[in-house]
């Protein structure tokens, strides 16, 4: 079970890079091309988790991505800041200019695109793990 690990600053600039490297690793691990597309989106969603926090970027811990062929298939774990708790139950508080979907949709997407998905809160951090089958 060989795992690679990538640690990048919490900055949208790096999201494309992470997508690229995890997609390539998925291909090497034997994930078929249409599922590689699923991996790319799932990775993007996992990295976007917490991206709506207004913490200073520089002050944030880096995002950690572990990936590689595991026993269940191609496994990815993303550890980073979790999304902020909803400020209030009133939906109207969300600024419509922000154009964001319900952040929970990110989990719906990861779940819909992968074969196995779990998440774990750890204080301010969240660990998202998903698996896509290999041929």
């Amino acid at each position, binding site marked *: 079970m060989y795992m690679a690990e990538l640690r990048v600053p919490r900055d*949208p*600039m790096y*999201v*494309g890079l992470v*997508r690229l490297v995890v997609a390539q690793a998925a291909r090497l691990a034997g994930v078929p091309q*249409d599922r590689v*597309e*699923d991996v*790319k*989106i799932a990775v*993007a*969603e996992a*990295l*976007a988790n917490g*991206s709506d926090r207004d913490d200073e970027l520089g002050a944030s811990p880096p995002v950690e991505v572990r990936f590689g062929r595991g026993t269940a298939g191609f496994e990815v774990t993303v550890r980073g800041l979790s999304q902020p708790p909803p400020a209030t139950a009133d939906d109207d508080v969300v600024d*419509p*200019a*922000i*154009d*964001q*979907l319900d952040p929970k*949709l*990110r989990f*719906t*997407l990861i779940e*819909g*695109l992968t074969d196995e998905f779990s998440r774990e809160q750890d204080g301010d951090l969240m660990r998202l793990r998903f698996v896509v089958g290999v041929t």
Partner: protein
Amino acid sequence: MELTLEHRTEGDTTVLDVAGEVDVYTAPKLREKLVELVSDGHYDLIVDMTKVEFLDSTGLGVLVGGLKRVRSHNGSLELVCNQERILKIFRITGLTKVFPIHDTLEEALS
């Protein structure tokens, strides 16, 4: 591959061609473009996503935001998309019920 955006008018409709990757890094550019179009009075939009190579929920959020903006002017926002990998994320998030989605631009215009 970055994001490129080009618009043109076809009768009363404005077609926005989106090509490349719409993600958390590039989505602000798409948002600005939609805001600009609406503030310039383009209320009936077709977003042609035929050349989109990547779209995630951040991009979906921007499209939903665009839809809200045109609707506040009694306008419309329809999509052109025939790529299964992108249609899939509209389906999973339930947005196929929110956006009219066409296979081709011709179909969207007619």
